[in-house]
């Protein structure tokens, strides 16, 4: 264990050059967490697994994921895509430890506002060669996510991300203190994959090679780990609720497309990017009319409350739009259809 922080070896106090930005970025092993205090909750992520997912066209695609070595059962410690959920309470002191196992990685808890050293961006702090404990105390309840911030175009695309939910002190069932309560919760983590990217080495391009990471042509489209040929039936995608129940959808755009979503049920967005709406005079909850598309770009989150008043099967369509042409990706095939089933 390193006992004293040497800030000169990091982006905090070290000399920042063109090289330290990318090719030769600051890296540390066992860096002592500054201002370390006793945690209320510990999570840990390892990066030692790759998975081959069977694709709808009979091939496989390799993904990289974080695993959770502290999970309660061996089954839960197995690798998953997306990476396993982190879930905390507002106000808890969190220790989130990364052990990359091989190569260097970081954890960026996206939307969380910690100190620089706990933010997980190598060129302004350091990448982690061996164990670092990120420390923060979430002050907002809402929907976030976490991902690796090394060679981010590739590592994020490869699946090194997972949802991060902060519940209010009263726990799951309430979106935020003073906000709406819910009975049925669904995380819709939306992704697209370009198979060309999934054959690369982890540092591809970082020292100046042209590996084509400026071009992204997705062929696969996934909702919470489900390929779009199964999203109208798979329970990870389909929402099941009863009349009278309140549904919370936590929508995360983890794709590299502009995501246009249309729902056959009206809803109300009660928080964006982890920030509650309607608590202050400068904004209010945003009604989302049925059958009217709305757009979120990469990394945006919306928490949407739906209160179905009648039985039925209500379709939801997500269209993945190319960031330059605005056209539906993959020649018009970049669409996810799923449904909200109300009984």
């Amino acid at each position, binding site marked *: 264990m390193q006992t004293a922080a040497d800030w000169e070896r990091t982006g905090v106090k070290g000399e920042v*050059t063109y090289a330290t930005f990318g090719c030769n970025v600051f890296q540390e092993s066992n860096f002592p967490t500054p201002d370390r205090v006793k945690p209320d909750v510990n999570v840990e992520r390892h990066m030692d697994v790759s998975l081959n997912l069977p694709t709808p066209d009979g091939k496989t695609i390799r993904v990289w994921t974080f695993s959770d070595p502290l999970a309660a059962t061996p089954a839960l410690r197995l690798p998953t895509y997306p990476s396993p959920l982190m879930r905390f309470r507002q106000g808890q002191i969190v220790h989130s430890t990364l052990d990359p196992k091989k190569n260097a990685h970081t954890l960026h808890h996206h939307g969380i506002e910690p100190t620089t050293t706990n933010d997980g961006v190598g060129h302004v702090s350091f990448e982690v060669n061996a164990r670092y404990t990120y420390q923060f105390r979430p002050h907002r309840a809402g929907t976030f996510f976490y991902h690796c911030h090394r060679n981010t175009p590739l590592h994020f695309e490869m699946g090194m991300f997972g949802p991060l939910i902060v519940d209010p002190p009263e726990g799951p069932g309430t979106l935020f203190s003073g906000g709406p309560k819910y009975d049925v919760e669904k995380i819709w983590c939306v992704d697209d994959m370009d198979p060309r990217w999934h054959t690369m080495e982890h540092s591809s391009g970082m020292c100046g090679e042209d590996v084509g990471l400026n071009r992204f042509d997705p062929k696969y489209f996934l909702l919470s780990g489900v390929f779009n040929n199964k999203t109208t039936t798979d329970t990870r995608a389909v929402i099941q609720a009863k009349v009278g129940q309140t549904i919370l959808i936590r929508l995360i755009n983890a794709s*590299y497309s502009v995501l246009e979503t249309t729902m056959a049920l009206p809803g109300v967005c009660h928080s964006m990017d982890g920030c509650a709406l309607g608590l202050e005079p400068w904004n209010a909850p945003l009604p989302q009319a049925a059958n009217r598309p709305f757009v979120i770009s990469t*990394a945006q989150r919306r928490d949407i409350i739906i209160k179905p008043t009648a039985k039925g099967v209500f379709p939801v369509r997500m269209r993945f739009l190319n960031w330059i042409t605005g056209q539906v990706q993959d020649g018009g095939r970049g669409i996810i259809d799923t449904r909200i089933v109300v009984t």
Partner: protein
Amino acid sequence: MNRRKFLMVSTVAASLATIPGMASAQAANGVFDLTIEAVDSEMIDGQFVFSLMFFNKSAEGRPILEVTEGDIVTINISNLDTRPHGFGIPGIPTASIASIPAGGQATVRFTAPVGGSYMYIDPTLAPLNRIMGLYGAFIVKPKLGTTLAGSATPFSRASHTPAIAAVFNAMGTHKRFPGNKWIPTDPERDKLWLFSQVDPLLAARVDAGEVIPPASVVPSFVPRYFTINGLSGYDAAPHKVDETTDWTKGAARIMPHGRQGQPTLIRNMNAGLCTHSPHIHGNHVFKLSDSNASGAVVCAAASYELDAWPLPPLSRQDLLLPFERPGDTIIWPPVDEPFPMRYVMHCHTEMSQTAAGGNYPQGLVTHWEMTGAL
């Protein structure tokens, strides 16, 4: 044989070389003298790419034109390129020159509209001439921008919404935002993030004299460089600041810098063809305004606090970075960890984080610095 200007990132350069990174242009009696010129512009990886740019008398390309609402503005443009060009400012229909022949000159005179952030472009052969580099920021300061409670804003009072007034009134008074109000006269509190992209193959075709059908530009566009105010990656933030730093230009115009409690305006615009998704660390920003379909500035009816926001082509959005205590820190001010706190802003549609197909993170990225607690 090459009489073009060279725009080089390094200041150690030949006499013809100038520095990319926009600077404020001072108007004499409301008159701006601009040229349109062909340049070879250095990218972050040392490659030079043919570009077209507006210049004024300063060394930097794409001057930032700053005026006050109600000013009579005169813009004289000399087209030093070998192709015809034009001039326009979306949202200001009177600020338009349909065509300036190669080697020709033209003048446009108009009254500066309500306060806000605008973009001047060459709208001819759209979007070709714009994506070749003919764009810049046109900033209108409001004649009367304060809220009824006396808080300064970058918008004319007649444009204010209750939400905008509430945000600016909250700075320095709300318990979340101890410190200052937004100070419009402090150049450190007024930042420009003008995004674009560069496709070297397209540039080479234009340079070679090829006639490019404008409708073919978007479907064939393959950007390889992603810029903020003409700069990328390492160059898009100053890595040493002191009392001599000129915050009105270059990388210092990009990087927000200040203590906790010094809210800072960010004028975010997209001259390019990609829909970006800028993402900020450390604080969320308040979305203040948008540009509508006709280019007018529209203050937000609801100001959302966002850490990522879509920025489509030609969109102009003003944001307020509150410089509040990063809300998930535990010990504040930190004892072990030294200031400045440094937080990145990057486009999360991550193809934009590359240069020439790799080189992460030498793309559309900068950072902001909090130099101390209250």
